[in-house]
């Protein structure tokens, strides 16, 4: 037997000036099932809330309807008041008499009647409300961070410093990512390795961080608070406990001519190698595809010279299962490859290189020890042309977006070149100069004024070789409005930032959505930049969209804070307005026929299977089951179900029907 209490608010004069609130309360009082109905000036105030609490206790109310402002405003307020009075908070609903009624209509009979109709509708709904309890999901306080670049490093350090365990998985032999390949960073011209390596060491030594390098995510199962991840530790062919990082093996390896990935193909490495001197961990791995022993069965020099006997040719990949409560994706980005630029001759002419390759040339630990030299003949270039927007902002190349970092790093490259080669001349062909960060515009000005970098506004149509020089054909649209031809010694293409190869596959493994460029999708572009649509999986860094280091670090800390919030409780509490598949006793068990249309409609993969077995263990029925930890309560599944076997708590079929009937019948 329902005993609903109705509380109509005047909201000062906001409602009462156009709606006859006294009459609304009276009309509500006459409804069947309403045990108490009153009006008051400010329902959300302390005395107003006290009034509700008292009525609940004195009248033994089973439900409450507050006719006042929008539930988007005060629903939590009134539900909390009900809870404090001992009434299940989900037995409280609000009728929107202000935003949807008093504020949008003039004072009239029709307006008051509408208010009466709205209250009546919610009363009929509340009669069918059931007490609901927040869902508790246990939380494993270990985080999985995928990707060991600056984003992954920052996120790991933040989460670990908050006292939680972190497992950092990196697919390359060392952490550091692209930032470790840079020479100096804008706008300060800080040495990149100098600011990065302390963090890398901190990660390696942090008691709460377990570092797994040369490893990748194989599988991810489970849901927020209780994921199960399978990590594939690729065989390094080294016993890490025995290896002391002396590096003797790398000096003695006879296979020396493998293009170094770290040096972007401009330098060589050996088959057993450490990617760069400051690598963390500073232990080598064997590149099986290029090692003489693995390919031809010969050699084994490294094994012979190793002082600790750490070489293990028979080592296999290892699959490790870990339980984590949250995942942070920090897999970074890649640079667009040569096949995209036939008109620039990238790949054809050795002296046409990408920005990342230029970083390696400029880097003191690079293949030329920091001297800018042409890859073709090793000579120092007298004239360098930088081509901005090589691929970016170009729908014909399939990349209509802006890669964000190129304007700044191109200015930086030109400055570094001018600092190293004083008599050199540099030219930058640009479309716009995007220098929107702190101190960025000043940095570009410095390049133009102090370092005399020549900025030419126009695009480059073709680059070809003639008499040992690279002829760059472009146009100057600002000063002369004429075509420009420059005979350059080297050309640097600021090629577009693109998603890593394999990004799609990784996203699919984790059920994270990605856009048409394979960048991972954030849950809301404005308000949720570090969350994904998959609860418990967060994003940090350039894997979401191209960005520079300050933004990456900020976003990584943001993702870490989301993880820390998640871990601040032992249990997750979620709104119980979720879908439930009906169950009933044998022999029906459920009206669900197991068509799983609902599962296909669910954007959160929240619907799984439940096997119903008889006493002997034989499966008699397969029905749908909603994972309360994942369901977000949209109700798409409910509208899909042909047998009406799944329903949403709080927006059930019965309730919605009752609302419709109540709204349209005012007798």
């Amino acid at each position, binding site marked *: 037997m329902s005993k609903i209490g109705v509380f109509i608010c005047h909201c000062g004069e906001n409602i009462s000036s156009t709606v006859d609130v006294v009459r609304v309360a009276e009309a509500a009082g006459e409804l069947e099932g309403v045990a108490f109905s009153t009006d008051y000036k400010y329902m959300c105030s302390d005395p107003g809330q006290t009034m509700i609490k008292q009525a609940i206790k004195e009248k033994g109310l089973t439900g409450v309807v507050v006719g006042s402002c*929008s*539930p*988007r405003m005060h629903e939590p307020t009134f539900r909390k008041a009900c809870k404090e009075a001992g009434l299940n908070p989900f037995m409280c609903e609000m009728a*929107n008499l*202000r*935003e*949807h009624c008093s*504020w*949008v*209509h*003039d004072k*009239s009979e*029709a*307006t008051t*009647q*509408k208010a009466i*109709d*709205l209250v009546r*509708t919610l009363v009929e709904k509340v009669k069918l409300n059931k007490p609901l309890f927040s869902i508790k999901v246990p939380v494993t306080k270990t985080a999985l961070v995928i990707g060991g670049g600056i984003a992954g490093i920052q996120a790991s350090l933040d989460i670990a410093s908050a006292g939680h365990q972190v497992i950092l998985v990196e697919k390359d032999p060392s952490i550091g990512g692209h930032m470790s390949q840079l020479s100096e960073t804008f706008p300060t011209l800080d040495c990149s390795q100098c600011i990065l390596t302390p963090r890398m060491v901190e990660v390696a030594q942090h008691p709460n961080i377990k570092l797994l390098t040369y490893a990748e995510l194989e599988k991810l199962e489970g849901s927020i608070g209780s994921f199960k991840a399978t990590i594939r530790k690729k065989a390094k062919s080294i016993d890490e406990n025995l290896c002391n990082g002396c590096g003797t093996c790398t000096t003695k390896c006879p296979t020396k001519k493998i293009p170094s990935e770290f040096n972007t193909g401009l330098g060589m490495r050996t088959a057993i190698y450490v990617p760069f001197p400051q690598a963390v961990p500073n232990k080598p791995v064997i590149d099986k595809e290029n090692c003489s022993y693995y390919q031809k069965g010969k050699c084994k020099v490294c094994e012979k010279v190793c002082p600790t006997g750490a070489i293990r040719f028979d080592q296999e990949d290892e699959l490790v299962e870990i339980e984590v409560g949250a995942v942070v994706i920090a897999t970074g980005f890649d640079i667009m490859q040569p096949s995209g630029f036939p008109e620039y001759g990238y790949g054809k002419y050795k002296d046409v290189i990408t920005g990342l390759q230029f970083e390696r040339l400029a880097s003191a630990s690079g293949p030329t020890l920091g001297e800018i030299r042409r890859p073709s003949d090793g000579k120092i270039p007298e004239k360098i042309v930088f081509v901005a927007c090589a691929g970016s902002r170009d729908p014909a190349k399939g990349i209509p977006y802006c890669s964000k970092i190129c304007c700044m790093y191109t200015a930086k490259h030109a400055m570094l070149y001018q600092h190293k080669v004083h008599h050199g001349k540099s030219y930058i062909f640009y479309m716009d100069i995007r220098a929107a960060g702190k101190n960025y515009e000043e940095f570009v000005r410095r390049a133009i004024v102090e370092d005399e970098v020549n900025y030419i506004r126009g695009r480059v149509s073709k680059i070809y070789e003639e008499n040992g020089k690279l002829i760059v054909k472009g146009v100057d649209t600002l000063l002369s409005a004429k075509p420009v031809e420059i005979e350059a010694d080297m050309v640097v293409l600021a090629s577009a930032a693109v998603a890593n190869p394999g990004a799609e596959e990784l996203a699919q493994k984790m059920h994270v*959505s990605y856009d048409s460029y394979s960048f991972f999708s954030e849950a809301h572009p404005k308000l949720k930049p570090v969350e994904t*649509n998959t609860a418990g999986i967060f994003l940090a860094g350039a894997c979401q969209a191209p960005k520079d280091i300050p933004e990456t670090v900020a976003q990584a800390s943001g993702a870490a804070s989301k993880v820390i919030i998640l871990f601040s409780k032992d249990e997750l509490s979620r709104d119980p*307005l979720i879908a439930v598949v009906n169950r009933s006793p044998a022999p029906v068990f459920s009206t669900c026929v197991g068509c799983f249309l609902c599962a296909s*409609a669910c*954007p*959160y993969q929240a619907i799984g299977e439940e096997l119903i077995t008889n006493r002997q263990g034989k499966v008699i029925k397969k029905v749908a089951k909603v994972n309360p930890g994942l369901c*977000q*309560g*949209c*109700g*798409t599944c*409910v*509208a*899909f179900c042909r047998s009406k076997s799944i329903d*949403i708590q709080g*927006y059930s*079929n019965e309730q*919605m*029907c009752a*609302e*419709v*009937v109540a*709204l*349209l*019948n005012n007798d």
Partner: protein
Amino acid sequence: MTEFEPKIIAFVCNWCTYAGADLTGTSRIKYAQNVKIIRFPCTGRIDFMLLLKSFGEGADGIIVSGCHPNDCHYTSGNFHARRRWIMFRGLLDLLGIDVRRIQYSWVSAAEGAKWADIVNSTVNTIRELGPYTEYEKVAGYLEKEANQ
């Protein structure tokens, strides 16, 4: 003879249109009283049989409104709703129900003025179309059959 005042029911999603209607209120933009809102978590939740139920209970017109495509709070609910609407519209046609009685729209949380426009134009349309009496006739006929 009193002028016919249409009874119109609106099924809106909590995250966009409901919030948009809230904004209309906050902006104090006035519109006709004939439309009353029922809150849904998402337009994807709307079982279109509820629309028929509404006509059966005396509605003269219906508004269904949610987030713009690609903006759904639950990612894809509004896509499902849209697809359902397209199929349902064909069925309504077949049944002889004037599709102009149902207004399907996207109103975001920022489009307070748009909500008012939609309400006003729908009310005008329904006023021109007149009260929806077909269901009564059918219901009356069925009752007569049942009583025989």
